[in-house]
């Protein structure tokens, strides 16, 4: 199979710092001139390598995800591959027509109608006129804006606007499609439609490079994922494995951690930890939990000195290190009862429709109560990703955007209504 993209030692340096105007953010002639007199032109810059020796090869027809934290170089990489900006060093070869979609609706003009914008945007994205004409009906159909096609888009709702914009891009027919995180907008149903459309593109033997913060989208779309960290390729391989690396726990599942040897296990004289696990509704170990279903946390510990009342607990932190909750083991079977030495499995099930979506880190802890002596408190022992479905029956309803809040319970609403007058 032949290559679609070969990147060799790509590097991109940005100069940031003093030259930019503090308030307006852009350079003025005066700044440059005064700068010359002060200390010479170069000294005021700070150098930043947004990409640093990035190499990879992508075969034709591959769907490759690119992940990484903010500032890891994802967008810069896409910009370099899209030829929007030039690499400082290195080289890339792209075989076939490239279309990049770094933003939905680039070049849309609010005063122009939907129809006019389809042509304009299509041309900006590199479509030929006859190509646009051929796909026109399909675009309108996909965007679901038939009735408003001759209305200026400034009168469109933001949803319609995004749908139309994506529809144009979705009908590009490149051999290589480069897509930045553009699906963070729009309602959930349409997002799903877009993902499906991109998957279709992949199935036709075209190559797709896809940046996203949504591990859900990445895992659904891509077989292969490249993880960038500080401008370098930190991992490159099968999607699940690399997403696992990104989520922080090496190449093993982040949903299970086992300490087979006592001397390396967290713990003290009385008790030590053996394992922590995250189980889904079916009882399988899983680092991905559907927001609608319960999740079971399990800790396995060994008591070596009997006779103490023990208090196991779990504490969960979200990605912002906010402690979302702490739950104590209040199981009446062992509450206020000194425990004999032995092997214990303590489990707690947290109901579905409770957490907000995102990554949750689990701290597993155990302490004696009288006198209080902490035995272990293993922070980030395991983690799991809560994924909000786009099917409309979770607490997000039909809203496709971000939802603030550390929890996302499904609560009953009631409306009373009286007509006017």
């Amino acid at each position: 199979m032949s290559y679609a993209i070969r990147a060799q030692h790509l590097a991109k340096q940005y100069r940031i710092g003093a030259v930019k105007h503090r308030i307006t953010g852009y350079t003025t002639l005066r700044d440059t001139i005064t700068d010359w007199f002060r200390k010479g032109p170069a000294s005021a810059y700070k150098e930043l390598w947004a990409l640093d020796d990035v190499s990879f090869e992508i075969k034709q027809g591959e769907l490759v995800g690119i992940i990484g934290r903010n500032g890891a170089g994802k967008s810069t990489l896409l910009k370099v591959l899209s030829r929007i900006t030039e690499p400082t060093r290195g080289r890339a070869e792209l075989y076939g027509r490239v279309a990049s979609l770094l933003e939905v609706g680039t070049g849309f003009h609010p005063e122009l109608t939907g129809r006019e914008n389809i042509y304009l945007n299509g041309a900006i994205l590199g479509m030929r006129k006859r190509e646009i004409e051929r796909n026109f009906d399909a675009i309108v159909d996909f965007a679901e804006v038939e009735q408003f096609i001759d209305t200026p888009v400034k009168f469109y709702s933001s949803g319609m606007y995004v749908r139309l914009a994506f529809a144009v891009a979705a009908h590009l027919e490149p051999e290589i499609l480069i897509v930045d995180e553009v699906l963070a907008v729009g309602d959930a149903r349409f997002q799903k439609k877009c993902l499906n459309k991109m998957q279709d593109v992949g199935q036709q033997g075209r190559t797709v490079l896809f940046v996203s913060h949504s591990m859900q989208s990445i895992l659904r779309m891509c077989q292969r994922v490249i993880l960038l960290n500080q401008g370098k390729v930190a991992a490159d391989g099968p999607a699940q494995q690399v997403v696992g690396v990104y989520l922080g726990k090496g190449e093993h599942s982040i949903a299970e951690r086992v300490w087979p040897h006592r001397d390396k296990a967290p713990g003290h004289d009385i008790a030590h930890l053996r394992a922590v696990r995250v189980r889904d509704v079916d009882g399988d170990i899983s680092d991905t939990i559907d927001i609608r279903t319960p999740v079971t946390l399990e800790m396995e510990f060994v008591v070596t000195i009997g006779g103490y009342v023990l208090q196991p607990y779990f504490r969960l932190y979200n990605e912002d290190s906010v402690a979302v909750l702490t739950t104590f083991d209040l199981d009446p079977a062992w509450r206020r009862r000194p425990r004999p030495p032995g092997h214990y499995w303590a489990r707690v099930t947290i109901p579905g429709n409770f957490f907000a979506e995102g990554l949750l880190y689990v701290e597993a802890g155990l302490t004696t109560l009288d006198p209080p002596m902490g035995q272990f408190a293993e922070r980030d022992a395991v983690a799991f990703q809560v994924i909000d479905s786009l099917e409309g029956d979770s607490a997000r309803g039909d809203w496709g955007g971000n939802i603030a809040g550390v929890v996302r319970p499904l609560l009953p609403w009631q409306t009373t209504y009286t007509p006017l007058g």
Partner: protein
Amino acid sequence: MAALEPPTTSITGVTNSTLPSDSSHTPTIIEPQRGWWQFNWRELWFYRELLFFLVWRDVKVRYKQTLLGASWAIIQPVLQLVVFTVIFGRLAGISTNGIPYPLFNLAGLLPWQFFANTVTQAANSLVINAGIVRKVYFPRILIPTATIGSGLVDFGLAFVILLVLLLWFQWPPTPAIFLLPMFLVLAMLTALGVGYWLSAIHVKYRDVRHATPFMIQLWLFATPVVYPTSLIQGPWQLVYALNPMVGVVEGFRWALLGTQAPSLAMLISVTVALTIFMTGWLYFQAAERKFADLI
């Protein structure tokens, strides 16, 4: 990891036709560019339709949400003509060798307005289209180039006024009128050349936005729009001819009104116009690579 979604199915109603076959053999090479002159004519040709769409957009959008719409293209030069006629024709009493002042003035005002509008729009074009520059690749030179389109449309509309005035003053055109497009091309080259320079500099230095109107105003007085070239005498004529718009306006008057035929000074104008155009183009090409980083 359990699949949360059912297997995806194709969206019906979406046709996916065959890929264009021309491009898959020669790879696109991305690497740091060295040297000034690296230009891909084939690519520019590929994007010719985009140039058309950008022009079309500018023309369409120009007078949207204005009460008077495209009639502004007529009202503007007419008002300016009235002002100039009153001030320079009546009050200052500038001599025009027997040509009615409005006619004399409009023949210069038309190419001048075309030039001034194009330069102003081109100078701001990249910054106005920053969103596109940051997010999509295509030859950037199309953006300032496209501003010529709406300028031409306005020129065409305003030209109607000139025809009306020619009839009104019963001033029969000479065969030289067929050479008019030549002088229009000269104005285009000058406007684009200046536009390339200014738009590329504007990306880095926003001073351009403030300096351009002032520059245009000075340039107007260095161009024989409100007065005849005969005011300039002696060795200054050669210096004067360095302004290519002198050649343009002279050419327009000659072609339309049958004034004195352009002299050797015209050659200087053409040379300067070509130089501005070529250097502007080259500078733009060299600066283009940094646009997305700076804008």
